[in-house]
């Protein structure tokens, strides 16, 4: 009945790497700071627009632009953290205030992008964005393949940082037990700032790849928000491997829905999954607890 299954899985696997990359920063930021960063897709869009600008004005390949967007977004993320979140650490209404602040940031970014780039739907079209491989009769877009592979590569890079470097230890420690981290001598404020920067740098990388795989317009980030939240909620908020698994599962599922039920219903996979997982198992399929209040 499902003759397209191999095709569905191949497409899902290729796209899944990019989805995972987009979600990785979101889950990292939630893990370390308990901030649900509603502006994450907006950050991705900033980078997509930078990449688009570099591509159209200077003919810089989006894959090369990644070397610009990642560091720029890293610094941008740290500044955002310092300006808006550093001072809230002891606020008894922390969760509420930070969520709403990221919400407001998303609105500002949407407005600024609209102001500069207008509402036109954009994307970059480097040569590989129109090419594809055929394995038998399975079709694989080069754009998706590149994005997926680089996405997974960057997540592996992030994972190595977290697992083996000094700042990685500090970030993991702060994620697992903030006060214990403080007690062993981790400067949790600085660690949070760097973690936020790293998360936004991942969004930066994702944005460059996003620019040639998908289209974007200033208000388009909200739909992505729900998609990314679905990925990290499914995998367990704050967990990086969880986000990767969540990304592959849901991407394959949505490609399946696209194929079998219709394109219009693909996004519904994410929205429904998000809602159902939150209600049935808010800690995610594999995750540890999600902190209430």
């Amino acid at each position, binding site marked *: 009945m499902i003759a397209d299954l191999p095709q569905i899985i191949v497409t899902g696997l290729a796209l899944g790497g990019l989805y995972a990359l987009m979600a990785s920063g979101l889950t990292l930021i939630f893990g370390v700071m308990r901030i649900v960063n509603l502006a994450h897709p907006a950050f991705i869009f900033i980078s997509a627009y930078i990449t688009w600008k570099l591509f159209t004005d200077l003919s810089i390949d989006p894959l090369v632009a990644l070397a610009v967007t990642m560091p720029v977004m890293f610094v941008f993320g740290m500044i955002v953290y310092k300006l808006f979140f550093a001072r809230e650490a*002891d606020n*008894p209404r922390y969760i509420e205030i930070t969520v709403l602040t990221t919400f407001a940031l998303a609105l500002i970014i949407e407005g600024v992008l609209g102001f500069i780039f207008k509402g036109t739907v954009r994307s970059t079209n480097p040569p590989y964005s129109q090419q594809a491989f055929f394995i038998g009769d399975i079709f694989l877009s080069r754009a998706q393949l590149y994005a997926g592979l680089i996405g997974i590569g960057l997540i592996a890079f992030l994972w190595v940082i977290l697992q083996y470097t*000094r700042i990685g*230890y*500090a970030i*993991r*420690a702060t994620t*697992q*037990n903030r*006060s*214990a*981290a*403080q*007690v*062993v*001598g*981790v*400067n949790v*404020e600085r660690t949070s700032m760097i973690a936020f920067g790293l998360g936004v740098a991942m969004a930066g990388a994702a944005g460059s790849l996003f620019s040639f795989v998908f289209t974007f317009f200033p208000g388009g980030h909200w739909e992505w928000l729900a998609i990314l939240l679905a990925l990290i909620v499914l995998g367990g908020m704050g967990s990086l491997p969880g986000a990767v698994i969540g990304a592959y599962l849901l991407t394959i599922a949505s490609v399946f829905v696209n194929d079998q039920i219709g394109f219009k219903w693909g996004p519904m996979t994410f929205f429904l999954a998000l809602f159902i997982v939150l209600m049935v198992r808010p800690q995610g399929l594999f995750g*540890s607890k999600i902190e209430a209040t």
Partner: protein
Amino acid sequence: MSLLEIDGVVAGYGRGPDILRGVDLTVEEGEVQCIIGPNGAGKSTLLKTIAGLLRPRKGRVVFQGEVLNGLRPDQIIRRGIAFLPQERSLFPDMTVLENLRMGGYALEDKSLMSERIEEAFAQFPILKERYKQKARTLSGGQQQMLVMGRALVLRPHLVMLDEPSLGLAPQIVAQLFEIVRGFKDQGMTVLMVEQNARQGLNCADRGCVLDLGQRVFDGPADGILDDPRIQELYLGTQKKAETS
């Protein structure tokens, strides 16, 4: 000059009331001092204030002649004060080995850290056996050993323990106080809060009583144990609880 001098420290949480209401206290180089007092007296609050987790509202915390007021916890630990809080502050999803490494986070010298981790393994063979296991899978006693092992890795000048015996089985408690004495033999100074007042004082050189955010008594540990007023006020219920 004492190692640590606390002068009229006033502290509290957020915008809340003063919990410490002018505490004076000194800790001498090389001693084991035990703080006792009823629940809610502010014992934990005092240790948190020294560790920099709370800022003093008034008064001074002086360590080796340097005023610590206003320093962050990570700066204070680098000056040689380690704090082992009441809630065992482990990293549940890190392995035993990684937790020990976190204990040495404040050490500059990484080869020294590996050496110390080996020493900690030598003292706590159970940790060596389970070095690859996640901390969350350890029993309560083993978790406390891991916390103590972490202090051994850092080997601070002054180590502050908040109710280390809480929730441990009696035979493990005895072992624990031996470890605390061991800290002293390894050249560390110890400031310890204990609900288990008798055993805590037995292990200590000097004791002090904190009540309602103020120090109400201090002196040699055995003096406190023998003082009839203190027995009545602060040790009485403890005695009954222990004999029953």
